[in-house]
């Protein structure tokens, strides 16, 4: 199937959204705004998937990534109270900027090398493997057939991965002592002392 003019326009628009979002993630100093830029990027990628007729992946992209993972990121930002602007002068992990620079240069080099040296096989303009193989069949059925026949082992490994994630989350978030006794109970167990600090203060 030929790439139509509409597909080019959609691609161009999404590319702009994706790149602008990615840029925003780095640019915004406020973590919440950075996370919202990430939403824009993920949304753009979802539309790009649609453009390639990979409908199921587009839906998963929105439901899992924007609907769950970025929500988790926002939860962490909001709940841990780190939603203040970061001080860029400080470097929490020493040496990370140099390493990041090296990795970025390496990735850029790889992309350039791939595009220039790979030839027509790599950048042929053909639909990616994410698209449906036959245009008339919904992509989700093809994925279902493959997932529950050929790639069933990968599916079960995913289950193991998710299990590890849950258990790790529980272990990491658990306090050393299960229940921290409330201060009020402490007061009732020990010899009585003047109630609460507020009661001691005299207000005029």
């Amino acid at each position, binding site marked *: 199937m030929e790439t139509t003019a509409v597909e080019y326009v959609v691609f161009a628009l999404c590319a702009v959204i994706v790149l602008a979002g990615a840029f925003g993630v780095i640019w915004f100093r406020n973590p*919440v705004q950075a996370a919202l830029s990430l939403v824009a990027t993920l949304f753009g990628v979802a539309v790009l998937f649609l453009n390639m007729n990979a409908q199921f992946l587009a839906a998963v992209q929105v*439901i899992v990534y924007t609907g769950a993972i970025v929500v988790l990121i926002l939860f962490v930002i909001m709940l841990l109270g780190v939603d203040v602007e970061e001080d860029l002068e400080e470097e929490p992990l020493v040496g990370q900027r140099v390493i990041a620079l090296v990795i970025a240069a390496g990735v850029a080099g790889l992309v350039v090398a791939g595009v220039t040296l790979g030839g027509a096989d790599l950048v042929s303009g053909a639909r990616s493997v994410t698209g449906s193989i036959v245009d008339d069949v919904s992509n*989700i059925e093809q994925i279902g057939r493959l997932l529950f026949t050929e790639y069933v082992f990968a599916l079960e490994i995913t289950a193991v991965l998710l299990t590890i994630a849950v258990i790790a989350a529980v272990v990491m978030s658990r306090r050393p002592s299960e229940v921290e006794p409330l201060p009020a109970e402490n007061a009732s167990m020990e010899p009585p002392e003047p109630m609460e600090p507020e009661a001691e203060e005299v207000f005029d």
Partner: protein
Amino acid sequence: MSAPFAGSLLVGQTGDPLLFSVDAVAVGIVILKVLVIFALLLVATMFMVWFERKLISDMQNRIGPNLAGPFGILQTLADGIKFFFKEDVIPDKSQRKVFILAPYLAFVPAFLLFAVVPFGGDFNGGNDGMVTIFGRDTYLQLADPPIGVLFILAMSSLAVYGAMLAGWSSGSKYPLLGSVRASAQMVSYEAALGLSAAAVVLVTGTLSTHSMVTSQAGDGPWGVLPNWGILLTLGVPFVIFVIAGTAELNRPPFDLVEAEQELVGGFHTEYSSIRFALFFLAEFMNTITMSAIFVTLFLGGPSGPAFFGPGWMWGVIWFLAKVFIFLFMFVWFRATLPRMRYDQLMDLGWKVLIPLALGWFLVLASLEVADARQWNRWVVGAIAAVVLVGGAALLRKSVRSGAALRAEEVLD
């Protein structure tokens, strides 16, 4: 491709036939349809607000709105117009950009959600609800993507952002508490929503909302009952979906988000003027759309017998009648049920609905496979029931040991 099913790849193309090849006429029809639906949605939302106030007042022995128009039916319009003339306050402590963005994130998904709902058409005698507008065949629904059900889930997962960001960006404590509650609640019930929707997909075998209605319009069990999702899934996913849907909407008895005794107005406390109106609009529009989704997934959508006149019109009538049942139900919930406590809400979602929805899905899948292999349905069902009960017992034990960790012994 080396899949063992390569031979069966060619099945019919799904989707609205109008959009198979898009030309100027098709675009014109699409724009016309969108404008009509948009206007009708706004009117329906206005009606819903009035209906809720009027019905609640009836249930509480009050009169309710009665001055603007006959039976006060124009009250919402008057309120809506008034919002435009109210001062738009953006608090000093708010995060301005996010504060402005949040209402959009709440009401745009609310609008988009309705796009995949089939709301009319004749589905009798093998018809597939096709109508002809300006010589083009089309469905009485805006769009019929092959992933319709996933689209619904995607939009409802985006709705979290409106509540979450509105509360966070307000820079005030009640909205923040409200939004934290709201987002955790919406996230918790979304999994139950998805699992029970998957049960319907399992029995109808399709993700497209239109095909779902076509499949539900056929002859059902024993030839007398309708072939609705509620019967094919044996009822339980319907109940779970309705409960989870109510919680997704933050409607009573799950309206902890705007528990006015504790949290003033919840996440939109700091919003005023038109920004508040958009949240309000989104809330009621979501109520209507969620009812329409209940109908589409479980009650056969617009399918139903046609008597006289054009068949598509009867589709619309059946659709509206079915949606109305749920609108009434939502108002009735609000008038009758006390608000849940937060721990009860979380317990219901995580410890009851999600495990039950998952278990029920697996039971239904086992029955499907049993039918395909011509095993005895009852034996398979009995085994599945035993496994389900065993799982429930494990769950109960686990919940108890979790609860024991929170208990402590004290002297009297």
